[in-house]
């Protein structure tokens, strides 16, 4: 440090080697490990539950399936029904809990990561160190983002394994309440939730309001996707029972209606009951659906736009950190 002042700014800038990522990763880990421990504890309990229940579910399913391999018959149908009634509630509860995992990642990992620094004033310390605030923020965001996304990916595999027998008996993996828990969508939802939380943190600058905002924004996005967006990823197909055959195995049925002999949609309740009791000639059932074969295509579309959204939100977060005035 003796002769440095003789050099001009441009010379010095090129000479300065950035602080290594490995060291920044340690800093990130040291500050993240407490909340990471909380998440690991929660996910560990959940994983253990899914594992134990999964073994029982699959055991029961195998027993039912072994009943009468070829013919089936009423006796075996009863075995499947028993299996279904016994484990349906379990499956629904675990799906509900699992649906909250991305939200937890957003609320407990995403929102505090920058909001806590801004709220406590420690950003004045962190942003004036030699590493610079951009690299610091990248390291602080990247480590939790990667770990929660990886954990979510593992969880959706576990859930798929646990849930497989129930898909086989009652629900399609394409059913809107399970679609985002399986495949690659779950990891993408988790990453998006984390990015929403991080952006809320840097915008709101306070931990608890940022958590609340992240929760609300994530829930709104999930509802919009399930109720409005997802069905439009591809143009749905239309089938009617008198013509082009059934929609195939385990489709995602978007809407169904009946038409009368005059070609008009049946709306009166009495007519509906009459149809259900004994199918009358000239009536046709129409189904708008997405075939089960489109499952992976839909997974890719959903994961794709969520990944793009997450990257956009993280870029916005970094941009805000760079221009945020102390």
């Amino acid at each position: 440090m003796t002769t440095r002042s003789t050099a001009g700014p441009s010379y010095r800038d090129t000479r300065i080697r950035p602080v290594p990522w490995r060291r920044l990763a340690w800093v990130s880990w040291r500050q993240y490990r407490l909340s990471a421990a909380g998440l690991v504890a929660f996910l560990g309990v959940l994983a253990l539950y899914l594992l134990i229940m999964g073994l029982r579910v699959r055991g029961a399913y195998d027993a039912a399936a072994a009943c009468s391999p070829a013919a089936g018959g009423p006796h075996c149908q009863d075995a499947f029904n028993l299996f279904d009634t016994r484990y349906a509630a379990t499956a629904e509860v675990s799906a509900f809990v699992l649906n909250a995992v991305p939200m937890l990642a957003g609320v407990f990992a995403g929102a505090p990561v920058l909001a806590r620094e801004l709220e406590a004033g420690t950003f004045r310390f962190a942003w004036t160190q030699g590493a610079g605030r951009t690299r610091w923020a990248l390291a602080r965001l990247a480590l939790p983002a990667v770990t929660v996304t990886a954990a979510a990916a593992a969880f959706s595999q576990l859930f798929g394994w646990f849930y497989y027998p129930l898909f086989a008996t009652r629900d399609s993996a394409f059913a809107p309440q399970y679609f985002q828990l399986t495949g690659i969508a779950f990891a993408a939802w988790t990453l998006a939730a984390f990015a929403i939380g991080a952006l809320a943190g840097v915008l709101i600058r306070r931990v608890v309001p940022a958590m609340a905002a992240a929760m609300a924004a994530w829930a709104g996005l999930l509802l919009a996707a399930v109720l409005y967006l997802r069905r439009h990823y591809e143009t749905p197909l239309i089938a009617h029972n008198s013509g082009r055959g059934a929609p195939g195995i385990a489709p995602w049925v978007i809407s169904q209606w009946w038409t009368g002999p005059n070609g008009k949609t049946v709306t009166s309740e009495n007519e509906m009951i009459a149809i259900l009791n004994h199918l009358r000639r000239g009536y046709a059932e129409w189904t708008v659906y997405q075939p089960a074969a489109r499952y992976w295509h839909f997974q890719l579309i959903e994961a794709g736009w969520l990944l793009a959204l997450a990257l956009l939100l993280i870029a916005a977060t970094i941009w805000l950190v760079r221009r945020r005035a102390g």
Partner: protein
Amino acid sequence: MNVIETKGLSKRYRSTWALRDFTMAIPAGHVAALVGPNGAGKTTLLNLVVGLAAPSVGTVTVLGGEPAGSPAALDDIAFVAQDAPLYKNLPVADMLRLTSYLNRRFDDGYARERLSELGIPLKRKAGKLSGGQQAQLALTLALARRPRLLVLDEPLANLDPLARHDFMATVLAAAAETGEGEVGGMSVVLSSHVLAELERVADYLILVSGGQVQVVGEVDGLLARHRVLTGPAGAADRIARRLPVVYVRRAGAQAHLLVRTSGPDEPVPPGWEAHPVSLEELVLSYLREPGAAALPGPARTQKAEPMEVTR
């Protein structure tokens, strides 16, 4: 080399200007005190210097022309913000490691030695230390980075008198260690409203009021160019018309006038006595008279009196 140089620096927060057309320079090798009333713009100025904030208008450069907040500037400037923010849930040892990992240079041996001298246990969490110890820890982390410029924002505000004394002793020892006055040594800029402590430590003064610079210069030069005249209160106004008076304080039949002077040999008006001025008195007089300025070069507001030139 100037450790800080601002040109027409202005900073606006929403509709209010925290700094307005702020132009000044602090040469290297000083312990410079930034003084002014609350809300004068001291913290804003320091945030701009360390790159936490960006100017609305104008420029601020550090360490001989580096843009504030650039990698080179961040590398060589250590900043201790107001209330010494630390990660309160981290043990002291982890604060050391974290700071060393966030910087290219970190003198771990120095930091550990300082902390053991101060009796700060490495295993204790930063949040469990006393206020004085937290300030000392923040200062130690800053000094261990071996900065060329140490910037302290209100470091003494929440400290008791003993802690203040110890804190400033650490700052002065570190400044002396690195070879005060040399290029490459450590310069210090601190903001404070604790005037009594500054008298002992500061050799350069920047007085800020209303977002503008009011007085800037070396303390010795400023003191030599001002003196207090004491005489009959009735004659004060007559003297004030003839001499460049900064501030008039009346105490009964007597008046004390802070007057700019060309030196100790300047004649004293008959019936008046001249005394040297203390730094505290000088600062207080200017604070009470925000219209008065003592700047190198042309100053801001409409001024009837001639400007003080300090270099």
